[in-house]
């Protein structure tokens, strides 16, 4: 080798290095520039101003705890005790939590020396350690109080509404009513509501103890009371999850059944007519391109909200996806097996059955089972739009903006459901076509 031989090679190598360097610095620079653009386009700096941290705190604390409302109606003087302030979570008449005492003067002990007293004539006394006793009088629509002028940040007061937030609980006072919220950890009433005879009993005493309800045996009674729990609605939740899985199952399988014959039309090997092939392929592209969102919107107009609409939206969109992948699988079929089958004198249909189908089934099944899992997630999302399944229950719970423990419950259920479907489709794939490795 001489120097003259080397110089072009060296030049080439230098060029290559230069290009590599350019790419090595260029791509990160482009990505960075794009992220800077996004920072301004999405107004990320203004996010802190828009974010509502109170909401975040409510969400974080409510999702694992529950509160009991003690409410005095200032017009009728009636006092109610209810879980989450809901009608269906009310204590039956004559019962109340044991941290409430007194008849004429109702004394609510929030713990750690925080005490609220409901006095006659719509007066309220609030004792918070380290702060002078607060007295509030409700008259008509306005409030009079003895609060000092400069308030600590845990008290907000106007002549219409006073809100006091302490570590032990929250108190709100308006002209119409006085309300105390006492917080406790855990999801209360998850098993039984207050009107059930089984409320407050342990599993042991329900299973082996005395009969609690004379009309029913303990186990059937407990199961039916739990199943029909009005606060947590276990029955509706189970149905909703069933609906979501049903949408995914019907949509995926229906799409696969529709797509298989169409895929033969789109595969070059089985359909020599160019026009027919092109039309089928464009059809696949079209239904895929329209996307589940638009299909859902269009189908909801025809069928109304519900699981059927979600099923059909998944079915139509996935027919396109399946059609495309199935026809690709059919293109890659090994010709030898088909020739072998046809050498035995097999008719065309038999050639497909014994020469083609056994080759493509593993590919198809793997695809279908993968989509079964992914469509469970899609069905949750579509359900939130078109109104069906667990997706709808989740959106409703979030929109009411108060049942955060239910939101947390649904989120856990959704994650468990998707992970179950993931495991199930993997298990089924293992059974049907063998493990991957």
């Amino acid at each position, binding site marked *: 080798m001489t120097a003259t031989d080397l110089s072009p090679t060296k030049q080439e190598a230098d060029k290559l290095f230069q290009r590599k360097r350019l790419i090595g610095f260029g791509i990160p620079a482009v990505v960075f520039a*794009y992220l800077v653009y996004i920072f301004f386009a999405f107004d990320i700096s203004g996010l802190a101003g828009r974010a*509502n941290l109170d909401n975040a705190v409510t969400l974080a604390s409510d999702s694992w705890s529950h509160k009991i409302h003690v409410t005095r109606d200032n017009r009728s003087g009636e006092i109610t005790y209810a879980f989450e302030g809901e009608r269906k979570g009310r204590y039956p008449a004559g019962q109340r939590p044991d941290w409430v005492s007194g008849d004429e003067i109702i004394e609510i002990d929030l713990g750690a020396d925080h005490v609220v007293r409901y006095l006659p004539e719509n007066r309220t006394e609030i004792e918070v350690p380290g702060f002078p006793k607060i007295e509030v009088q409700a008259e008509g629509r306005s409030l009079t109080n003895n609060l000092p002028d400069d308030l600590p940040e845990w008290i907000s007061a106007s002549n219409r509404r006073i809100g006091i937030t302490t570590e032990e609980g929250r108190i709100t006072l308006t002209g119409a009513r006085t309300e105390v919220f006492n917080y406790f950890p855990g999801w209360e009433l998850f098993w039984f509501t207050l009107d059930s005879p089984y409320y407050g009993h342990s599993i042991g005493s329900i299973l082996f103890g005395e009969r609690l309800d004379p009309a029913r045996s303990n186990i059937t009674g407990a199961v039916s009371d739990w199943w029909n729990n009005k606060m947590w609605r276990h029955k509706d939740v189970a149905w909703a999850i069933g609906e979501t899985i049903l949408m995914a199952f019907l949509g995926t399988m229906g799409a696969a059944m529709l797509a298989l014959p169409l895929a033969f039309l789109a595969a070059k090997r089985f359909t020599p007519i160019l026009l027919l092939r092109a039309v089928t392929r464009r059809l696949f*592209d079209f239904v895929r391109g329209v*996307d589940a969102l638009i299909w859902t919107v269009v189908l909801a107009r025809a069928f109304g909200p519900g699981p059927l*609409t979600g099923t059909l939206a998944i079915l139509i969109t996935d027919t396109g996806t399946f059609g495309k992948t199935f026809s690709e699988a059919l293109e890659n079929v090994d010709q030898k097996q088909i020739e072998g089958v046809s050498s035995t004198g097999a008719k065309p249909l038999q050639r497909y059955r014994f020469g083609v189908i056994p080759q493509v089934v593993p590919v198809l099944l793997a695809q279908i089972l993968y989509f079964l899992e992914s469509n469970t997630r899609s069905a949750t999302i579509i359900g939130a739009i078109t109104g069906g399944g667990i997706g709808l229950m989740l959106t409703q719970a979030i929109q009411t903006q108060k049942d955060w423990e239910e939101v947390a419950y649904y989120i856990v259920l959704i994650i468990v459901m998707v992970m179950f479907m993931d495991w199930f489709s993997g298990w089924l794939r293992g059974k049907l076509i063998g493990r991957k490795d």
Partner: protein
Amino acid sequence: MPAGIFVSGDRMADISLSGGPRAVDNIQSSYLEQVQRRRLYGGLTLLIFIVLMAAGFNVADSRNAGGFWDGLHQIGDYPSEVLSEAWDKRADLPRLIAKYFPALVETINIAAVSTLIGVAGGIILSLLGTRGLAKWPRLIPLFRRISDIMRAVPEIVIALVLIFILGGGPVPAMIAISIHTAGALAKMFSEVAENADLKPVEGLSSTGATWSQRMMLGVLPQVAPNYVSYSLLRFEINIRASAILGFVGAGGIGYELRNAMGWGAGRFDEAAAIFILLFSTIVFFDQVSSRYRNRLTEGQGQ
């Protein structure tokens, strides 16, 4: 029959002549029996499947607001109304498309940013969760579970919760899609990384390279084509996801679509403009990404 095999010479020919047909009969009958049993099982599975499909369809039908057979002939009504109105006002269509174009850009931006963030997260999670590559081999199950959970959460769950805290707009959708993308890509990336050649990594570690240097220089160049291909596929999926999340209040073209739908008849041309934009965007990115993906995987085969 087995006894005959060990006998040599003309004896064997004798045995196989006399024993042959009977043995073939035997094989044939047991084969037919097996085929019949397989057919029975296959038929039963098919029957159960059909019953499940039919029953499931009936349940879905009965729990739906409108029935299938009543609705079937109405499927075309809404699209044809929208199309005919859009056709009547076709002169206005370019203006509407221009009007909604910024919203479309927002939707694409959400998808692009969350793909970028998701890819970064996916690479880190996958490398930490792959045998032979992980920095802390004992924590592999932990990182795998984390990516499983991130993958299992549907985008809408995180988006709705974040909309409550952060208010509407693109950021909740971006975070929600990023989380799901990171989880989904971590699984696919780690399958690829498992098959990566470990020799470059060993070579690098002999020079005293740190873990991140080993990964950057030893592993990523090997897996890059596959990673890019999966990321492009994910970008395509994320455009759809970001349009859907817009529909529940996260900004972009989906949000505009919901508003346009709410106006009802008389403003169908706006809905039509959005449909056209969304459809052509999805088809465009679908085609572009599938072309590049084909090129990437083809290059690898050689």
